């Protein structure tokens, strides 16, 4: 369930980035950075305690699904994005020159190629998400939340401490992620030109 939503979310995000939808594409890239660079645990805390604060009631199950979707969405988005980028823009032009609409070009020419490129990353993501699920079903969600409560009890200021936690992880993980994307770009220039 969570994984299905993750795939959908990822697809929508990748489309927004592909078509460079103004404003939304910013939202998407912030979301992707946030979700990739914070651990699932922290994301779950946020959903479990954060959502009720802004008036959305959750239970452990919904929280689990949302957490998985939130985390998985960004990974899936990246998988789709790399697939879309692998399709040369002149393929699009070739389809347009045959009179195809943007939608037809996407549906019949770009997506089938992009998806076949994305499949390995896609599969790896599904496996990765499965593993994450087993982790929090093993601990049992409620336990996990109690632990969090204790922890937060120590610090007292719930939101602030959670926020700090996220920031802390971002500080550690963002540079690694940037390094990763630099490397990826390097590699792409290095050898795959036709």
């Amino acid at each position: 369930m969570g994984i299905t939503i993750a795939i959908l979310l990822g697809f929508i995000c990748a489309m927004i980035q592909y078509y460079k939808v103004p404003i939304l594409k910013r939202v998407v890239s912030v979301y992707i950075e946030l979700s990739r660079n914070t651990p699932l645990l922290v994301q779950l805390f946020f959903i479990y305690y954060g959502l009720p604060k802004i008036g959305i009631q959750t239970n452990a199950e919904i929280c689990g699904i949302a957490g998985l979707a939130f985390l998985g969405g960004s990974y899936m988005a990246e998988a789709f994005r790399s697939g879309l980028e692998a399709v040369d823009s002149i393929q699009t032009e070739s389809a347009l020159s045959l009179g195809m609409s943007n939608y037809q070009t996407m549906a019949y020419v770009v997506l089938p190629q992009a998806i076949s490129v994305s499949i390995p990353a896609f599969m790896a993501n599904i496996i990765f998400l499965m593993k994450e699920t087993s982790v929090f079903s093993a601990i049992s969600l409620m336990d996990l939340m109690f632990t969090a409560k204790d922890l937060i009890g120590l610090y007292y200021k719930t939101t602030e401490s959670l926020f700090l936690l996220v920031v802390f992880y971002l500080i550690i993980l963002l540079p690694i992620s940037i390094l990763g994307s630099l490397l990826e770009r390097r590699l792409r220039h290095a050898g795959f030109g036709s």
Partner: protein
Amino acid sequence: MAEPILALKNVTKHFGENTVLDDIDLSVHQGEVIVIVGPSGCGKSTLLRCVNALEPIQGGEIYLNDEKIDIKSKKLANLRQKIGMVFQSYELFPHLTVLENIVLAPTKVQKRKKEEVQQEALALLGRVGLLGKEGSYARQLSGGQKQRVAIVRALCMHPEILLFDEVTAALDPEMVREVLDVMLNLAAQGRTMIIVTHEMQFAKAVADRIIFLDGGKVLEDTKPEVFFEAPKTERARQFLSMFEFNVVKSQVEKVSS
């Protein structure tokens, strides 16, 4: 004279500071074969891409029959159906077979019956010597075969005008001829075409008019006999001399004697 099929009026195109097409006027009439030649980077591809609205223009107008080609136009897809384009790099869709490549746009865009389009596609494949290849994928074909499929794919949309952008430039020499022969046939059938090429012998044979483009301007627009025998501009003479080996040879002889 009858109204032109395609008319470019004062077309100007910039890439940032770089003016690539500078006040281009060009009319193409029914059945005419126009060959555009000029040094690399002079704007030949850009001109074709502007006609198909793959690039926006910053000045002037382009008309197909009486309809303005505008990258923002709602009818753009409709206009593009009437303009067939063949690219240097073929651009067959790799996930589809030859037949699927050809049939895709006529069935999805023009909503024609699949059986009817398939029959036409097979007939056209036969005409370019590719019968039996309809089930192949692009990766299983040679460059010359891919390019002939790309031409058939464009033809199957029943375009009013065909644009060819250096379609033999990426081919091994022995495959150039098979593609040029297809184009010569199309010309003989009275197709309206704009061809960008560096094959001067072919240009001479196929063209009704030669356009010499340099620095984003049309420097010559004339019959092939005139262009190749007595070009008016110095730039065109220089350009043509690059294809003349006897000039080099006589200079070599001068030096060695």
